[in-house]
């Protein structure tokens, strides 16, 4: 009887909380240039776009830009050439009469020991991608992982080797909850993996400056501030040079 009484109370408390969509009157601001650039052993991958209003219903379009990549000696580098670990690279981007620059150091790549997809039935009832990485020896390392689903970025995050220096670092990337998977709602499609989805997990060894930027980017939405500046000149976005390694997986319903 007492238990029923308590369950009733708890239900009341639970119902007392709610999450609902609300209308919001956003301010508008002039567009700001946005640069996203990765330099890996495979060359430079860069996108230049602009911010849009919150109410805008179209995706941002690429804008024309003049891109220059130089090494630590100031020599211009072919953006498609292989970046060398230990070298520092400077990216300069000119958009109209505005010029932005950022510098990053190319770091040695780590080794991915294993990557597996597992449902954690006991505790969280979530699907995790468990990643084991051999830390780059003899250095203080910062890492960024990107998990691609059918070629599109699905998850990303940053971590360091703190506490696991020169050893095996294990990270569990939380993919989706079983409820989300089974409910399969249209608004959750960006979270849901489907049978046969091709996954690629890439791990980049990055420098402290890049790590600080990506860490602040990961907090940006939650704490409502802009990430720290990665470029000089007043644009948004980042330039990262990273030694990259990757592994491929396929998601199956019976995983």
């Amino acid at each position, binding site marked *: 009887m007492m238990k029923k009484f308590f369950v009733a109370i708890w239900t009341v*408390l639970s119902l007392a909380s709610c*999450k609902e969509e609300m209308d919001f009157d956003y301010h508008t601001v002039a567009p700001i240039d946005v640069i996203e650039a990765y330099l890996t052993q495979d060359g430079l991958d860069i996108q230049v776009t602009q911010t849009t209003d*919150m109410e805008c219903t179209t995706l941002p379009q690429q804008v024309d830009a003049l891109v220059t990549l130089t090494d630590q000696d100031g020599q211009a580098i072919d953006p498609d050439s292989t970046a060398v670990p230990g070298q520092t690279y400077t990216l300069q981007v000119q958009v109209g009469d505005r010029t932005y620059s950022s510098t990053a150091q190319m770091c040695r790549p780590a080794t991915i020991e294993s990557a597996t997809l597992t449902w954690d039935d006991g505790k969280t009832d979530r699907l995790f991608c468990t990643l084991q990485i051999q830390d780059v020896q003899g250095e203080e390392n910062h890492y960024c992982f990107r998990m691609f689903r059918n070629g599109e970025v699905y998850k990303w995050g940053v971590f360091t080797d703190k506490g696991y220096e020169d050893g095996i670092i294990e990270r569990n990337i939380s993919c989706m909850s079983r409820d989300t998977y089974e409910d399969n709602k249209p608004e959750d499609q960006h979270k849901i993996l489907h049978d046969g989805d091709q996954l690629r997990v890439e791990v980049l060894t990055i420098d402290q400056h890049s790590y600080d930027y990506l860490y602040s980017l990961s907090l940006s939405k939650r704490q409502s501030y802009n990430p720290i500046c990665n470029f000089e000149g007043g644009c948004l976005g980042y330039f990262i040079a990273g030694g990259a390694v990757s592994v491929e997986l396929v998601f199956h319903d019976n995983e």
Partner: protein
Amino acid sequence: MTSKHFLLTLLALPAMAGMAQVQDSTNMIKREFSLDEVVVSSQSANQRVNMAKLGEQKIDLLQLNHIPSLFGEKDIFRSLQLLPGVKSEGEASSGFQVRGGTSSQNQILLDKTTLYQAGHLMGLFSTFNDDAITNATLYKGMIPAQYGGATSSVLTVDTRPGDMYEYHYGGTLGLLSAKVFAEGPIKEDVSSFLITARRSYADMFMQSGDLKDSKFHFYDINARVDWRLSSKDRLAFSVLNGKDVLGMDDMMDMDWSNTSLSGRWMHYFSDNMMSTFTTYYSSFDNEMGMEAMGMDYDQNGFIRHMGANYTWQWFQTPRLKWNAGLQSDHTWLRSAEWTVGNTTERDQNNAWEHSAWVDTEWKPLTSLTLSAGVRGSVFAPEDHKTYVTVEPRFSTSWKVTSNHSFKMGYSNTSQNIHAIMSNATSMPFNRYTMSSDVVKPQRANQFSLGYTGKTDNEHYDFSVEGYYKFTNNVYDYCDGKNHRSDIHMDNIILGGDSRAYGVEFQAHKNNGRLTGWVSYTLSWVENQIEGINGGNWYTASNDRRHDLSVVAIYLINRKWDVSTSWKYNTGQALTAPSGKYRLTDGWQYYYAERNGYRAPDYHRLGISFNRTAVHDRYTSKWSFGLYNVYGQSNPFMILFEDDSTKPTGVKATKISLLKFIPSVSYSIKF
């Protein structure tokens, strides 16, 4: 929302504050042996008019018993939030903000020991069990010189002494918790004891289903022993221990606790001179452990104080009184200790603080009262610069007629323990730091001006107070940094200034079946911190332009009373995006201005019915209440999220808590 989700919401909140019966000339205490115990009747309309100091607010614990409360838990902090110039931190917090300050700029003293994060369930309720306390006074304007260490306000609370003549015991059973107390003489007319205990009992019914293996409880214990050694000497020892424990399976555990010990010796030299010697120890501890998602992580922190305080009071003439004293305090502050894998990092420092003060109140004329004080402190952190501060204060009251008085005052205060909050709401895992070579003592200068008036029959009284406060060395996290960014606080915080100004109105109805008050505050709070918002002044997150509270208590008959409270305030200032852009996995937001938006306005109505029955041997009381009667969806949190089903790809959502919260409790006292 399932029970598990509700618990997770609570757990997630951090991501997302001699002798009680020392009778001085301004504090007359009347004892009534009913459920309401000791009734502080110190602040009658007449006393409000006569009081020299601005911004001093005695908390009426009798009224506290009638005001509608959340879950039926009588909460001194939530009552404070109904006073002018005092604002709630947020819907789910009993933390309070005073005159543009943050909750971390308040000092909460229990029997002269400092408490931090004095709340249960992530601050949903205060640590104070109303059965255990007697006096409570909030100083929000001119803080007496005997108190140091807070730039915004000081709340002093005293543990209730036990009855020296009769034994009493009783208890209360509520929706969320149960509490018991016992008091009585150890030796009649010589010594007494009081012990109270409170525990939530939700966890006892979580032994199956979603919540199996979850931990979710709090408790607190207060105890006090008094001795009357002679007609001139009294001793009192008091203890508080309170703890919260939350956990999910074996994945996550978090707990935080407050412990305070206080011993006081009060000595009367004569009818007009007395001294109090207090030794104290307090400890606020927090600890969190997580073993999930490949992370094996532990963190802990603490703030501990140990010290002694000697206060001397002399009522030299009926028109002239003095308060002077000395205090020595040692602080141990561990901002955080993190253990990840095989690495442990720690940010900890210790400091001595020695203070001396003198305060005086002089009535050169019947209609004129002058009050002045000064506090000097030497704060000496280990391995860092020593700071010497001198904090003067002054106030005057001019009684134009017996019913009307004008007051003005100035105070200078400082604070060396800084809490840096990631959110607008204080949490048990906020990180603290102390003044150092990098972090400077916070200094506040406050000017205030006020009027208090009453009607001839004292049925009604009114007050207006205006204030302007400028505070140096307020600290916030750098953009892009949070409490987890770096173990060393000096590396991740920035300092700047804050200014707050406003005017407070209050009207009381004091007599008759219907009593209550209306309070209204019009205020502004702004910060300027180099490196945030381009170094420009910005609206502080605790800025709320309008704040209105209406409290009414109606005695229906000898047994029944009904009370209501209605609260309204302008929505909280918040930072929201003004643009969006694509990076990596989706939309990112561009924030053009810190706190450039407002959340929707907040309002709620509470109502409670109390039935008190006095029997020959005992008194019983039923309390029925409803919090947020009309179910207003007040925003607890506003989120901006990606939503691929929307043409814009994004949406704004509002999380609301505490709609239609019914409560019932039963108390009995013998």
